[in-house]
């Protein structure tokens, strides 16, 4: 029974390349909503220069303008255009989200698959992961971010380290199941080395859960970046990120509510979009949840 489910899971992944999964995704409502939201945000972020306004350009005569006319999202305490800053902020925030998702995915997958393949590595590696997981991800990131200094790449490193353990656990558990299946023994019988077994057999079979987890990490990272910036250890000003626009607007929250509103809305939307996308991927890649259109 258990084995049948696992086999089916592996087979669902195989079918992906045959476009069946793609077709299912196209018919999956929450995946498509998430995908459209994320796609629109990425396009908007890339289109930021089209506003023709310098995101850091200050206009002291146009401070605290509410959203209207020339300034659709209003201006902040230095008279900078918030629409432009939110769009450029999307570039930075999405970049951080993507980098963290990719880094934690790559390192998490490597650690997970190593500890599943080399049993003597399992205990030391997993105890380190447990130690990292014992602290809440955001606290860990605050600590690391503070130690590395307020820079974009230190935010990325801090968040990646914070999310690696979860990814590693997921890949490890998937690989532990796969390595007991007969085709691993069959590969050994064909003379495949451990390295080959890890990369050609264990990792591709863990691709589904890994992909889903990475989309969630993407969403968490955007939220966490905002939290770090709010605490003053995010990407340094004047570079706009959603988090530090909100952080700078905090002092004027009552008089100029629009400063915090639009980037806050963007963060929620991005997180929602990535989560919907991830949910959709999980539904389609995990055969235990039968969601047929």
């Amino acid at each position, binding site marked *: 029974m258990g084995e049948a489910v696992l086999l089916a899971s592996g*087979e669902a992944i*195989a079918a992906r390349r045959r476009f069946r999964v793609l077709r299912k995704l196209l018919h999956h409502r929450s995946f498509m909503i998430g995908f459209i939201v994320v796609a629109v945000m990425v396009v908007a972020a890339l289109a930021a220069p089209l506003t023709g306004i310098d995101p850091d350009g200050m206009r002291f005569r146009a401070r605290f303008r509410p959203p209207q006319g020339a300034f659709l999202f209003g201006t902040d305490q230095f008279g900078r255009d918030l629409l432009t800053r939110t769009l450029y902020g999307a570039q930075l925030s999405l970049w951080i989200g993507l980098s963290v998702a990719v880094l934690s995915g790559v390192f998490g997958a490597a650690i997970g698959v190593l500890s599943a393949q080399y049993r003597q590595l399992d205990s030391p590696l997993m105890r380190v992961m447990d130690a990292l997981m014992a602290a809440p991800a955001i606290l860990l990131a605050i600590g690391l971010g503070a130690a590395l200094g307020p820079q974009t790449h230190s935010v990325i490193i801090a968040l990646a380290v914070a999310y690696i353990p979860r990814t590693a656990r997921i890949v490890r558990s998937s690989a532990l199941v796969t390595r007991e299946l*007969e085709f691993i023994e069959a590969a*050994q019988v064909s003379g495949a080395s451990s390295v080959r077994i890890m990369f050609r057999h264990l990792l591709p079979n863990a691709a589904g859960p890994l992909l889903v987890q990475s989309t969630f990490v993407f969403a968490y990272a955007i939220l966490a970046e905002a939290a770090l910036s709010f605490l003053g250890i995010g990407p340094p000003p004047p570079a706009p990120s959603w988090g530090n626009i909100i952080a700078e607007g905090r002092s004027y929250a009552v008089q100029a509510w629009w400063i915090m509103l639009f980037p806050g809305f963007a963060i929620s939307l991005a997180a929602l979009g990535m989560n919907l996308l991830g949910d959709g991927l999980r539904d389609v890649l995990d055969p235990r949840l039968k969601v047929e259109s």
Partner: protein
Amino acid sequence: MAAADNTTPLLAVDDLTVRFRTDEGWMTAVDRVSLAVGEGEALGIVGESGSGKSVTALSILRLHAAATTRMPTGRIMYGGRDMLGLSTREMRTIRGGEIAMIFQDPMSSLNPVLTIADQIGESLRLHQGLDQATARRRAVELLELVRIPDAARRVDEYPHRLSGGMRQRVMIAIAIACRPKLLIADEPTTALDVTIQAQILDLLRDLQTELGMSVILITHDMGVIAEFARRVMVMYAGRVVETSPVSALFRRPVHPYTDGLLAAIPKLDVDVRRLPAIPGSIPDPTAVIPGCRYSPRCPIVEETCRREAPELLAAGPEREARCPPRVAALAVERVA
């Protein structure tokens, strides 16, 4: 051990013992087993689940986890080399290259995320250094060799599109990809239905003759042995209880356990309400049985059987059995 032929056998396992670490201590799964397979020969190993037949086969390729396995005695000589002394790298060139293996369950023996071409090609690229295009061409030829229709199209499919019988053919194609000298087939037909079983056995036999391979066929099915092997080895509770040419074994089994196995085969010409079964079950591998391990279930058990562990005794041309009373009775008969 009765030698298969006069020359040195391709594979000679000598006095092999395999022990596994369990929660209750060290358990002996295979106890001083010896066997020999000549070039082009088909050896059958038969026994119940837990008799040590699969463990013996996996030991030949050294596929047991080193941390929980001990092989305190024994040698596994293959082509003049002791396999137990080879390095991991040397073992890898033998696995798949010179000795190949196919397994019981074709449903889980193929990686669901790789195409058939990838999986057949893996072995070819590893051992023969073929590039991808050549490996794919060879894969198509191999699929044709194992009689998969429409091979050129099948080769790019994923395993879930194939039936159990087809998958087992693919497994065979992978196994013979590098022209191994020895093929170990561990219950290759058990998971298949009867008509497919016969096709797979036919295929294996034809390939064996065509490629001149030696084959070790492991099964619990006496019918499969009768069809396929020339010589058979019966295992019980980790020990060899009888080895014999197949025809002689079916004509006149020596060991009472072999009697029991043969009696349990349904006969076409006799109506029985219930097939005769051997009472009891195979002993727990951690249990200590002082005398003959079959004595608790044996219908002809004698007092000495319970006390002294019997040795394998010569019981005729190319025959040995681990049952002193029966062997003695046979000898008396021959003199008379």
